[in-house]
């Protein structure tokens, strides 16, 4: 059985070792994509495995969620779909005007017949509007999306790759995908045994909750880890102080999940790939109707773009960057009161934490705790403490849980903690982020 413990070394290295990969969303770029619907299995956080249907890129294994397709605004996009499943499948791209050719007509779109048909359906559309989108199978969607036939589509604004939309207010330093799903293993088991006729979607009772196809703590493992071959995408947001983080949320299940970001509010700037703007008819709309919130729900099938931060630790009443004896450092404020290099808010410079913390033996430390109250001042956790055996934070990062606030969803098949959760980490400026 797969242990449910963390792999501390791997995650520590993930924080410590610079990586040539850009701090961007993993996916496949281009304008022409070949997808194949296939069967395979995924690993769930309780140590179990689950039979899945999913989209595969080219001749690879299927993945959950499907490949994240990353295109540019204005691109003519072509997606060719083949099928190795014993049922017909298809693709729909909500928010786009799609032309489908080949295959056989289905209810929503053209479908690829069940294997061994070698038919290919070609879906073409123009990615006219930037934003975050969902794609999924338009064939018996209630079952097929549950089985894993869904993915994300990202359209980058023309000429502005570090913005979510055309307006510079939507600029970000880092972006992460939050593809939110839930699953009922009993359905997957029936399908695996070929008992499709016995599947009753009205009796669906999900017990597993996912971000990017993984349950916590798999969400914080690296992208493309070899022991999760069909779940390539992690969700481990890391950022430096002062950075804006774009959350691209996709609600791909049938339940609502109130998604809470610890540490700082996020500004919801768009829903379904459309900016929250009072005037969308101008060339580059501004998000003047954006809403700041600590918890945001995407309804099923909807996408939400939100910008978290920047987190600076400002106005805490003490210096989270360290006191003079712990970490000598300077703070030279600009007109806004912040040091432009460190993003420290200088009015609290060198102020000590105003309370005494309990002795270590009185505390149960978490494995994402940096060991001290301060950013960039790591400390070892007491050896007899649960978190010490698998300490994930060796750089003095300030960690925050980002998770579904329907708290029962912090479980994987009734094992706490798991489910729809991940940890975000603000790391010191001198620590590179992969």
């Amino acid at each position: 059985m797969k242990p449910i413990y963390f792999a501390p070394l791997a995650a520590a290295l993930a924080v410590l070792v610079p990586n040539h990969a850009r701090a961007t969303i993993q996916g496949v770029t281009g304008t022409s994509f070949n997808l194949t619907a296939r069967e395979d299995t995924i690993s769930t956080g309780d140590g179990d495995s689950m039979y899945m249907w999913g989209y595969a890129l080219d001749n690879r294994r299927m993945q959950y969620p499907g490949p994240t397709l990353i295109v540019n605004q204005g691109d003519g996009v072509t997606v060719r779909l083949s099928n190795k499943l014993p049922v017909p499948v298809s693709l729909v791209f909500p928010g786009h005007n799609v032309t489908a050719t080949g295959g056989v007509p289905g209810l929503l779109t053209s479908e690829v017949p069940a294997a061994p048909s070698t038919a290919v359906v070609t879906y073409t559309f123009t990615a006219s509007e930037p934003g975050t989108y969902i794609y999924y199978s338009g064939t018996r969607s209630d079952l097929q999306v549950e089985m894993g036939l869904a993915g994300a589509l990202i359209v980058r604004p023309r000429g502005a790759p570090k913005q979510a939309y055309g307006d510079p207010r939507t600029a970000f330093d880092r972006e992460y995908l939050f593809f939110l799903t839930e699953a009922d293993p009993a359905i997957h088991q029936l399908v695996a045994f070929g008992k499709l006729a016995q599947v009753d979607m009205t009796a669906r009772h999900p017990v597993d909750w996912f971000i990017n196809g993984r349950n916590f703590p798999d969400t914080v493992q690296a992208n493309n880890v070899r022991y999760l071959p069909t779940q390539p995408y992690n969700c481990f947001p890391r950022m430096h102080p002062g950075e804006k983080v774009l959350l691209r949320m996709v609600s791909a299940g049938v339940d609502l999940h109130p998604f809470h970001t610890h540490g700082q509010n996020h500004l919801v700037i768009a829903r379904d790939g459309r900016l929250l703007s009072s005037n969308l008819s101008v060339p580059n709309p501004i998000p003047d109707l954006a809403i700041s919130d600590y918890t945001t729900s995407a309804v099923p099938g909807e996408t939400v773009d939100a910008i978290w931060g920047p987190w600076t630790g400002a106005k805490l009443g003490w210096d989270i960057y360290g006191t003079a004896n712990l970490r000598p450092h300077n703070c030279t404020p600009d007109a806004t009161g912040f040091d432009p290099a460190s993003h420290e808010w200088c009015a609290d410079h060198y102020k000590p934490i105003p309370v005494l913390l309990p002795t270590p033996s009185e505390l149960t430390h978490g494995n994402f705790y940096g060991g001290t109250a301060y950013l960039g001042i790591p400390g070892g956790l007491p050896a007899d403490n649960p978190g010490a055996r698998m300490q994930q934070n060796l750089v003095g990062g300030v960690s925050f849980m980002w998770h579904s606030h329907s708290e029962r969803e912090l479980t994987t098949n009734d094992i706490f903690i798991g489910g729809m959760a991940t940890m975000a980490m603000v790391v010191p400026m001198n620590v590179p982020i992969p």
Partner: protein
Amino acid sequence: MKPILNIAALCSASLGALLAAAPALANGVHAQCPAGILTQSFDPVTGKNLTLDVRHPQASTDPGCRDIAAPTFFDTCKVLKDPVTGQPSGQTTNPSVVCRSIVCGDGHVNMADGSDTFIFGFTDVTNAPEDLILTRGMPLAPNAVPLGGANFSAPTMIMREGQDFYLTLTNAGFRERPDLSDSHTVHYHGFPNAASVFDGEPMASFGINMGSSVTYYYKNQYAGTYMYHCHVEAAEHMQMGMLGNLYVLPAQDGTPIPYRGKTYSKFAFSDCPRAGDPLCGSTGYDAMYFLQESAFDPMFHHADNTYNRISFANMNDTYGMLNGRGYPDTANPAELINVNNHPSQPIPAIAMTVDAGGNRAPLVIHQGNRVLLRLSSLSTVEFYTVTVLGIPMRIIGQGAQLLKGPTGANTSYPTASVTLGGGEGVDAILDTTSVAPGTYFIYTTNLNRLSNNTEDFGGMMTEIVVSP
């Protein structure tokens, strides 16, 4: 009526000297507060003056304050009560400092259908002598039944923009689940620019173990409706009831600002950063409701009380509640007394006033008043939609922020209902200008949760009475 105040602490200078001489870490049960808690200067019943305990500078020496068998244990401590909640205000001799102390453990509450439910929860011990905090969390009740003293909802936290907030949490352990050695935390949900050390999420920081205290520190920068809860094993601890209201009043309060022909001095937000701002005074109100949605699954609570396996995925919440009560208990201003004769459900789900003698009465809301509704949800399973039947509503805040776009646009909106998932919160203004006097209802339109388990009807509903 405002009680006369006296200065509680010896003085901040001597406390400062004490802290300077102390070791670098706190030990055991210890409520840290840099200023003295304000207390009433005399007992309104006996007329006796109160003095302070030199061993516990923040605690009264009144004998009743040390009689843990007394059901009014904390009333006799004479800590200054908040007139809105009747709970300790935590105000100190330093107007910019608020200190509260809570203890966590287990206990029992009365559901609105008359049944008894086992909970995990918090209880207020602000100003309690430190050597009595643990026994307060696990009291020996008058009838010697070993039941804990947890409250539901948890003690309400009220601060003001700019105030320093010292919140001490002491873990008393579970009296009825001695097999569990859970740690606990407080997560101040929505606190901006949080430090993980005070965020209460135990993986990113730590939980406090049984028999010890941790003091969280927050400098409140922004008014708004937040919430708090324990974040340890959150799926269990939150379903079990470790949930409470928390809101921050704006620094603007007390400044008269006219809005649409009337002048207000209480506001949801500091909505007037400069004179002439179009939103100046727009969040003004005459009366306030703070309502927190939650719901219990009685089978989960029963399993937890009887050492049985608990299932998260099978949670089925059948008791819809506001502020820890189902209708009609929601509209009863009294504290509710549990099977152990302990006041375990301290706050109703209506606006009330509490005088210095502890007497409670519904706050009279007159036709024409604007009512601020601070609505939050800490449901662990479902989304709930709430409507206010017959009174126009406008959502003016969300996520502890004034609904004002990045370029200044007014993004508030009128609506008849608002839907919240767990961890979501809004501020709404109910305008009774065109509302005939009478009784109106605030209730969930998830109509199957207008129930106290199998009993119809009740659940997530309360009243708002508009007087002439």
